[in-house]
């Protein structure tokens, strides 16, 4: 067994090296295919990140009557938190709201003046609710509208934000759907490309395979080194593809950052390196094995 395995690996290394030109063609073709797959994957990860940051900024604020006691609001907070669609509830007291308000309007003397004239804190205490996902806000708003504590609520800002939220939801849905479609299409093209490359690589060696049969090599003995070569193709191509992607990310990063502040493509790439490399390697190796296995079958029937 070791002997066969050893010979298999040796054979495939030697073949890989001596078929130099063919190996270069096959690997570069595979690299490009995997590069495209990795590129789409990176874009998907980045857009997902962007959408996520949009979603994170969404929330509903529920404002309470000024005479509702803080303990009552804390009770309500607990009740809202127990809802399954709710991710986080934050309590903003009157004082805190005022502080924030002052901070935000520090450069507007007219507003600050009028605040001083009023003398007391005109702002209301509120609960800021974040949902698991952006499509849940409507349900949460409905729930608040029907809840037992609705008497204490002055208003929510949902109706005001409703349009923006539903618009954003539409965009998120569309981007996700088209990203998936794009990934599927490119993945499919790449898979076919890899499959055909390996088939051509084996086609050029069909006579060799015939000779091997003639000398009395069993099918396994012929097949294993060639399938191993497919694995090499896959590994080398996935590493190369990831390297190219890295450079793409490095040079593309400033552009993305300038378009969408706070997004660093290179960091995203680095954080997801194991996923990107992993997907490419698994895809490359699997396709390498699968296509060489299928392609060689035809020539083993002598």
């Amino acid at each position, binding site marked *: *067994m*070791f*002997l*066969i395995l*050893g*010979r298999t690996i040796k054979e495939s290394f*030697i*073949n890989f090296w*001596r*078929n130099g030109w063919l190996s270069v063609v096959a690997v570069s073709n595979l690299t490009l295919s995997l590069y495209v797959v990795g590129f789409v994957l990176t874009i998907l990860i980045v857009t997902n990140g962007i959408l996520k940051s949009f979603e994170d900024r969404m929330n509903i604020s529920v404002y309470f009557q000024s005479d509702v006691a803080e303990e009552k609001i804390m009770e309500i907070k607990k009740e809202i938190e127990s809802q399954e669609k709710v991710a986080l509830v934050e309590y903003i007291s009157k004082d805190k709201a005022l502080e924030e308000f002052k901070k935000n309007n520090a450069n507007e003397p007219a507003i600050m003046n009028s605040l001083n004239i009023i003398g007391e804190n005109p702002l209301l205490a509120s609960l800021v609710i974040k949902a698991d996902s952006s499509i849940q806000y409507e349900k949460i708003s409905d729930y608040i509208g029907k809840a037992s504590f609705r008497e204490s609520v002055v208003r929510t800002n949902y109706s005001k934000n409703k349009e923006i939220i539903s618009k954003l939801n539409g965009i998120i849905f569309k981007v996700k759907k088209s990203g998936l479609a794009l990934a599927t299409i490119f993945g499919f093209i790449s898979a076919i490309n890899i499959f055909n490359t390996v088939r051509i690589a084996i086609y050029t060696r069909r*006579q*060799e395979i*015939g*000779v*091997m*049969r*003639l*000398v*009395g*090599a*069993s*099918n396994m*003995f012929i097949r294993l080194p060639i399938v191993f070569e497919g694995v090499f193709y896959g590994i080398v191509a996935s590493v190369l593809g990831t390297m190219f992607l890295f450079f793409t990310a490095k040079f593309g990063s400033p552009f993305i950052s300038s378009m969408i502040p706070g997004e660093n493509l290179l960091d995203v790439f680095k954080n997801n390196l194991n996923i990107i490399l992993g997907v490419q390697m698994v895809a490359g190796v699997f396709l390498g094995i699968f296509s060489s296995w299928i392609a060689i079958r035809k020539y083993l029937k*002598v």
Partner: protein
Amino acid sequence: MDISQEENKIKTKNISENEKMEENDKEENMEEFPAIKFEGVSKIYKNDFVALSDISLEIKKNEFVSLVGHSGAGKSTFLKLIYAEETPTQGTVYFDGRPLNKISRRKLSFHRRKIGTVFQDFKLLPQKTVFENVSYALEVCGAPRKEISEDVPQILDIVGLGGEMEKYSHELSGGEQQKVVLARALIHKPLLIIADEPTGNLDPQSSIEIVELLLKINRIGTTVILATHNREIVNKAAKRVIVLENGKIICDDAKGKYKVC
């Protein structure tokens, strides 16, 4: 340690597999079987071309047979039936007493290891050196490393290529390439050597050398079937001559010369 143990295991496994195949027809004494026996064999290709019609003959062990005939007379088909690249349309081909139509695809490689083949177009592996081309035929049988490193140089010395082991086939002349092929055909000590127009691409001098090697191989104790239409070679061999024409045997001469019957 581990590796040599594994090698031994593989060796014994191969032997036992060969024995298993031989057990199938153990009732007879091995020596009595002819190397090749054709029983009413016809081969008709898909386009209704009759390559062989109703051939019956025996080739005994250690015989040297020259197979003669024009192109298209059925020589190559005759040989292909023996190494089981084609199957007969009718009749049965026996190899060492065993009918070939019963060999499964999986066992086919075992059958081929008992036959050495030599072709007009050499059929060497272009990506391999002379040494590797010959050793491949041994690796295929699962031979241990020690055997390979001993036997391959030895056999290359016999054919006179001991000094060219690291060259690739395209660096050799036609005659030298054919000698590599012969070495490859011999390395696993086959029962039978099949040579299909081995001198077709060679100059007269190399042709004579190849035939002399084939005769030498035959003397050592291997059955040889030589298909050719080279008159000089057949006359030089001066052994049994079978003449094929239009898929039929028209002459079978025990001590023959090249002739048109």
